[in-house]
């Protein structure tokens, strides 16, 4: 169908994850006490980033397999 859905998923989550993680690092609020000691933006941003990269790798493998 022209476009592998995993590519936009991968890029969206890579970008959103990176944004959240960077924001978490530069703007960590110690006053955010719902989860003491956890930088939620950094933590969740990193999780989204991992998911995004995994999706990009999957789509790459699929393209490589299709070429063979």
């Amino acid at each position: 169908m022209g476009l592998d859905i995993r590519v936009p998923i991968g890029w969206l989550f890579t970008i959103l994850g990176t944004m959240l993680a960077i924001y978490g690092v530069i703007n960590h609020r110690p006053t955010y006490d719902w989860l003491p000691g956890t930088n939620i933006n950094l933590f969740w941003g990193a999780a989204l980033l991992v998911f995004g990269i995994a999706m990009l790798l999957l789509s790459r493998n699929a393209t490589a397999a299709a070429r063979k």
Partner: protein
Amino acid sequence: MGLTTIDWLIMLVYFVFVLGIGFALKRSMRTSKDFFQAGRAMPAWVCGLAFLSANLGAQEVIGMGASGAKYGIATSHFYWIGAIPAMVFVGVFMMPFYYGSRARSVPEYLRMRFDEKTRGLNAFLFAFMTVFSSGISMYAMARLIQALHLLDTPFTRMGLPVSLIFHVSIAISALIVLAYILLGGLTSAIYNEVLQFLLIVAGFLPLVWIGLKNVGGWNGLKQTLPGAFTHSWQGMSSSATNPLGVEWYTLVMGLGFVLSFGYWCTDFLVIQRAMAADSQNAARRVPLIAAVPKMLFPFLVILPGLIAIAVVPRFVEQPVPSAHVILASAHGSAAEADPTSSNMANLRQGLIPVKTDPGTGRPMIDSNGKPVFDYDLAIPNMLLYFFPSGILGLGLTALLASFMSGMAGNVTAFNTVWTYDIYQSYLNKNASDAHLLWMGRAATVGGILLSVAAAYAVTSFNNIMDALQMVFSFVNGPLFATFLLGMFWKRATGHGAFAGLLAGVTTGLLHIGLTLPVGSGVSVKGGWLGAIHYYPSEMAQNFWTAIFAWVVCFAVTIVVSLATKAPNEKDLVGLVHSLTPKLPDQDLRWYQQPKYLGLAVLAGVLVLNLIFR
């Protein structure tokens, strides 16, 4: 005050992707099959997530969170009883006929199996309902943006009156949905639904996690809330002893059988996603794949509702100064002028405020003098309360995405039914494929315009939303009887199906006119023919409307079919179970075979019900 730059950036990135997908797909939209059926080339997992997402509109996320706060974990019946069994049934038993018949839509299947008039009836009712559903999504989203004051700051900065926010919200959402469907048709809608599903998980999972941590986990909820809130089957033997106000057999028959099968097995909105799959076996797996996340969704959308009423708000040390958590209208001058209503306005359940009348700004009171809580704010208030900026942008984007996919799902179903089942069948029988593709795009514009009109109709007449819920119960109620007989009884005839459907819908309407929920007055929702029976709750009345409509449709279809000429068996090959050669699935691995997948899903639901009984 308001959202910070990072929140806006996250929203912006998401919308760039939404439109980007549309542009990327533009080149592959060459025929009407590409546009309306996604070329029938989608992998099962993509269709599966879209199948789930298309149903995940406004009613779903906001509504299920609201019910969670109002009724507790019993809301999970809408998933575990009211969706999963029907999803398994449509995948295992019905999909071979939808997909195998090569019908392009559900009404078209009805024409192949029965006749033109049955298709026409279904097509027109369906087109009407999709336009209204899409309008309700649009309306609910604009109201929410207004209520949360999301756009107040940018509007004041630009010198625009705040009163325009509602209209601008409607216009923007309409334009975005219009753009990506015009560009990429059903493929674009499906891809965006997958994206939106993942975004909902990404936005709500941390919400549930933080929320649960702060109420002491599931055990904390159990201690804080009344027992019936954390046990889905407690008190279900009588309508008086459980929060839903229905007995177990009403629930199982009305919701679990009639309404759920009527929706999941016959509604083209969801079936269209499965029919876009790349093979019949893939199409059969679509609802089964969707069922797995569906049965876990209560933890994402219902649990926040429970947490919202269990949280003891800490206002003094509110962690997010920018948050506009809506808790009682403290600045409402009307409330201050009237001491009783002022006390009322300060009442709340956890994060749920008392509902205020949008006209007067006064707290709303029911007929017993008790305050009415605004449960629809459960999930939005949870997001604003627990999330700091950054992840707050993600959560709100997920929420907005769910509204848009609800709209897009309805619009793609509408443009297909309009073009194939109304335009090509009645208005222009010899249209070329290129003309149909053009008509599909025109119908997309028309569908969106009608949705906008519907959204404004809901704005002007408050009870339209309630009335429509009722309409759905008697329009969807009888449908499953027609399809069940059509697919599994070769003697069923077109005259029988048409008469059955009409009789079923009429019965539903009469039943509503003759009954009332206890404690309600005569209104559009019931009793206008004189109430002869009272139900313990509105939900019970709703379920029984559907049950009566179904039974009458089933019986009338059989009687009229037997009295009319039997259809020619040669014409029914591929459409009826007993006349269709079975497609072998031995070459599939066991986990790809629908029957095993279906059994695994049902076992999962059984376990969940036992855990949360």
